[in-house]
């Protein structure tokens, strides 16, 4: 069976290429990249767009120089803690309760409830009381916990404080203030002076026997347990308050959103608004009888006060801390609800680490191959298609046609490539199509010139003249007789331009002109640079560039072998 001339011409270069080691390596690498692009969804370990977040029962301990992370307590966030001489209690999400007897280890009693627990306090006689969502109230009788029925089952209770051995107060997200009689289990609802449903997040017993509840929008309510009367208190801030802590001595600390730290040094002093050196949310505070204070909050922020200004303590942690536990010299910050696993180094879970908003970089790199190859191949195909045809037509017909076409090519040669592509994308908005066009629109000029000059000599060759004499049509001569002879050159250009187009796409994406929400290698590098983190996060920087390099190199390796085919003189004496 004889192959048509077109295929015969194509078969020869392929056969020759098979003998070139470099080309084979190139082909192998390119095939791997193509497979990666095709099977990206299977190969990726994560959704490349999704922000990876972690929740855990984080424990951060204050050390000599800095706060350091201890092994975490389970996988659920810890919300509040309380302690007395005998033991410590921690409560958290999904009914988490941790218990530690003096000098012992942390243990978890049997899970009593699935709802989130927000507050815990221990009475002067050592009775624990826990409150949480869905009006959950757990009271300790001896060693056992018992649930207490609430009058309104839907309340989200956030704060709890014992007043005396049998009376406790609870506050809730709907401005609830409830009084619990521990003997009878009876709950009295107390009217808040505002009554607009503003959350009251925390409550504490003050030195004078009243209780102070703090909440959002700077809301502070003083509750008098004698007659259940309430009174609005003005603090020098109208921020959302998250937590109040009052020490034995009467020193008190209120912390809240936006770095709010309000200190009262002794029972008679005024509340002072501290200049916090950070503006993130503070979630819990603690003040000692000696006047030192600590506040913890979002994104690993720990503030310390030792007279003078509040200082940021170094923590090296992204976790959100919600509670403080102090026992003697031991000082623990507890957390953490979902925190973004940002800028994580490569690990078993994230092979190439994560980026600044916790997206998996390995998966991004895998998906990045799709755009690179797609743009590379389509743009190169387009360039060769236009260039070859223009070259063929100009070279074959000559005369006026050639003149017009080649003058156009001349004009194109005067246009600076990269700035022009930039302008096109800026003008028409970044989309895959525009990017491909921006790359292809100028590049075909080279192909047109090359093909034309070959055609110019080919058209004078005997076999073309013979075909013309035999009465073959122009189209037939051009595409069946001349074209197969320029095919090696076409393949060569195809390979070179694929490589160049991949780099061009990467460059455009790196400059921020990639198609929105698409993932490309250049785009990953763009993000890295934009975030400012690339100077430390080498795992973010290295892989995309290495992938681009490997892919382009594989194409160039193939092209080199094609070059030898297109230009047999290079084979001389090899």
């Amino acid at each position, binding site marked *: 069976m004889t192959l048509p001339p077109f295929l015969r011409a194509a078969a020869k270069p392929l056969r020759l290429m098979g003998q070139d*080691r*470099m080309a084979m390596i190139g082909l192998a690498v390119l095939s791997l990249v193509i497979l990666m692009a095709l099977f990206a969804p299977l190969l990726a370990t994560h959704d490349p767009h999704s922000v990876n977040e972690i929740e855990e029962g984080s424990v951060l301990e204050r050390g000599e120089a800095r706060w350091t992370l201890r092994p975490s307590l389970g996988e659920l966030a810890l919300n509040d803690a309380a302690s007395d001489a005998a033991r410590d209690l921690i409560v958290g999400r999904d009914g988490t309760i941790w218990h530690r007897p003096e000098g012992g280890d942390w243990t978890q009693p049997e899970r009593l409830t699935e709802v989130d627990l927000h507050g815990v306090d221990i009475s002067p006689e050592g009775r624990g009381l826990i409150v949480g969502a869905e009006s959950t109230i757990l009271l300790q009788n001896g060693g056992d916990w018992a649930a207490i029925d609430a009058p309104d089952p839907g309340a989200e209770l956030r704060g709890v404080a014992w007043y005396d051995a049998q009376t406790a107060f609870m506050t809730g997200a709907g401005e609830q203030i409830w009084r619990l009689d521990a003997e009878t289990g009876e709950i009295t609802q107390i009217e808040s002076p505002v009554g607009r449903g503003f959350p009251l997040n925390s409550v504490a017993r003050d030195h004078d026997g009243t209780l102070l509840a703090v909440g959002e929008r700077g809301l502070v309510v003083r509750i008098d347990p004698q007659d259940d009367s309430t009174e609005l208190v003005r603090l020098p801030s109208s921020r959302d308050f998250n937590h109040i802590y009052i020490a034995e001595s009467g020193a008190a600390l209120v912390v809240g959103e936006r770095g709010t730290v309000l200190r009262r040094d002794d029972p008679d002093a005024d509340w002072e608004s501290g200049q916090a050196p950070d503006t993130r949310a503070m979630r819990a505070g603690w003040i000692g009888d000696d006047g030192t204070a600590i506040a913890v909050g979002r994104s690993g922020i720990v503030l310390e006060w030792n007279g003078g200004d509040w200082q940021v303590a170094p923590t090296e942690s992204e976790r959100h801390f919600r509670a403080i536990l102090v026992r003697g010299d031991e000082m623990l910050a507890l957390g953490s609800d979902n925190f973004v696993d940002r800028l994580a180094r490569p690990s078993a879970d994230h092979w190439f680490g994560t980026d600044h908003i916790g997206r998996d970089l390995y998966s991004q790199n895998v998906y990045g191959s799709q755009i690179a190859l797609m743009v590379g191949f389509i743009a190169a195909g387009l360039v060769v298609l236009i260039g070859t045809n223009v070259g063929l037509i100009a070279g074959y017909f000559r005369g006026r046609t050639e003149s017009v076409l080649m*003058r156009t090519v*001349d*004009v194109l*040669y*005067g*246009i*600076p*490539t*990269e*700035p022009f592509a*930039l*302008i096109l994308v*800026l*003008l*028409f908005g970044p989309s895959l199509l525009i990017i491909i066009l921006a790359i292809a629109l100028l590049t075909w000029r080279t192909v047109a010139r090359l093909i034309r000059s070959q055609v110019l000599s080919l058209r004078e060759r005997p076999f073309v003249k013979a075909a013309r004499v035999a009465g073959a049509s122009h189209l037939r001569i051009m595409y069946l007789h001349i074209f197969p002879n320029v095919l090696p050159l076409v393949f060569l250009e195809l390979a070179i331009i694929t*490589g160049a187009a991949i*780099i061009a796409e*990467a*460059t455009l994406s*790196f*400059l921020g002109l990639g198609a929105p929400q698409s993932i490309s290698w*250049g785009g990953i*590098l763009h993000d*890295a*640079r934009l975030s400012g983190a*690339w*100077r430390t996060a*080498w795992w973010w*920087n*290295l892989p*995309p*560039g290495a992938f*681009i*390099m*490997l*892919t*382009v*190199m594989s194409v*160039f*390796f193939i092209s*080199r072998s094609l*070059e030898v085919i297109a*230009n047999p*003189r*290079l084979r*001389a*004496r*090899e």
Partner: protein
Amino acid sequence: MSRRNYLIRRVIQAIFSLWVIATILFFLFRLGLPDPTAALITEGLNAEQRAAVRAQFGLEDPLWRQYLLYLWNAVQGDFGLSFANRAPVASVVWERLANTMVLMIPAIVLAYVIGVPLGAWLSWKRGTGTDTGGIALGLMFRSAPPFWTGMIVILVLGVWLSAFPTSGMRTLPYDADGFLDKIFTLDFLHHLILPALVVALFYLGSPLLIMRNTMLEVYGEDFIEMARAKGLPERRILYNHAARNALLPVVTQLAVTIGLAAGGQVAVEGVFSWPGLGREIFRAVGTSDFPLAQASFLVLAAFIITLNLLVDILYTALDPRVTFQ
């Protein structure tokens, strides 16, 4: 056709190209880019106040009039005032082009100084492992996006080892009068090394491969055979006969590369915060600064067209095989 007529025709063509590009640019920008006074909204200017600014920019005139005025002024080398800072555009463009060139020319020269002899040497070692390795290395540098190489180089040499400054052309502030005074300093050289190295590595592959391939072609020519027949030493044949004849395509490529690089490496300029022309175009287009964008692009185009013209003339002068068709 005589050489003179050929030259005249080429010059006319060049001017024609320039006019076409200037026209395309003008309309592309006017019709495609947003109102340059849009950014003033965030400064609190209302529609009426912005119209006053537009009038000041000459944008309230009919389009054809703006076009003719633009062409007329451009012919006289007057590109107007930048919308952004009311500075004469021409001076800004020249300065930026000069900044780009003081980076690109040393880099490209470096690439050719290393690449050409290396390519000749590889051709000599053709078919050996050295040859393959050399080619692979050249292709590797050509394959790595230079902005990435730049980031890596900054990371290692600039940040980790603190051996080089990582951005800009010089340490600020400085005392200098005029451009030459600014660039002939050790401080400038210190700033130049990293970006120039990165650009040089990227362009290294071209001269290397072209030189090697041309040499291989030249080896097949009769005069080499004759030299061999005369019993000249191979080394002498390589450098005195073959290399000299192989240089022409390399020189051509050099000119083309310089033309490309002039507007080229926007991303490299970005990575090294180099105040070059490419970045100026990027910024000007982004803020609809028509006069600046047009002028920078036109100057670049003129530069490239001139280089192409020079290459053609060089070719006709040096290569007797080229005829004036």
